[in-house]
């Protein structure tokens, strides 16, 4: 189904993100994985609001009103992107601290349950 390619792209991005999270041992790479996951979800939100042949939902004063894409998903994506930035900043500062303590970014340096 050609019309579903955007959704398959979204699925691909999410899978790449999850793969990075599950198999990469470097903390920075894990953070990148989360960012890719986030991009996948954001792309999904944006694709939901598109209508064939539509323009951005901004009125320009022209008399003929063209078909407009949905504004709500774009607003949601905006919120989601800002949240992504916030989470990214926090994660990176925690990674900096972990690096200070262990001198390494390898995931095995994260102490487990044992003392």
């Amino acid at each position, binding site marked *: *189904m050609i019309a579903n390619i955007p959704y398959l792209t979204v699925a691909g991005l*999410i899978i790449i993100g999850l793969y990075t999270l599950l198999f990469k041992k470097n903390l920075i790479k894990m953070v990148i994985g989360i960012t890719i996951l986030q991009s996948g979800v954001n792309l999904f939100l944006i694709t939901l609001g598109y209508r064939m042949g539509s323009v*951005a939902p901004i009125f320009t004063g022209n008399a003929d009103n063209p078909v407009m894409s949905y504004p709500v998903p774009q607003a949601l994506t905006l919120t989601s992107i800002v949240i992504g930035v916030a989470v990214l900043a926090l994660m990176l500062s925690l990674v900096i601290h972990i690096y200070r303590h262990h001198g390494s970014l390898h995931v095995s340096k994260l102490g487990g349950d044992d003392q």
Partner: protein
Amino acid sequence: MNQRNILAAAFLTIVAVFLMFSALFMHPFGEPTSQAMDQYIIDNTVGETGANNGVTSVVFDYRGFDTLGEATVLFTAVASVVMLFRRLKK
């Protein structure tokens, strides 16, 4: 491949299959099936909010409270980062 990797690979495969399936079951791209909320906003945004930009009218008017939350998230992040890099001794 150790045990953890096999588990992770199995999990990833399951998620991948589910996601691909749901992609096939979604409504076709570019033809949303339902439009009640968004069509209302497109029709009324100029009259109700006085803004040309539909997205801004959603961000600051129709869903203004979300934007307050979003601003709060950024505020939280700044407070967190500043707190994490504070000087520990007075």
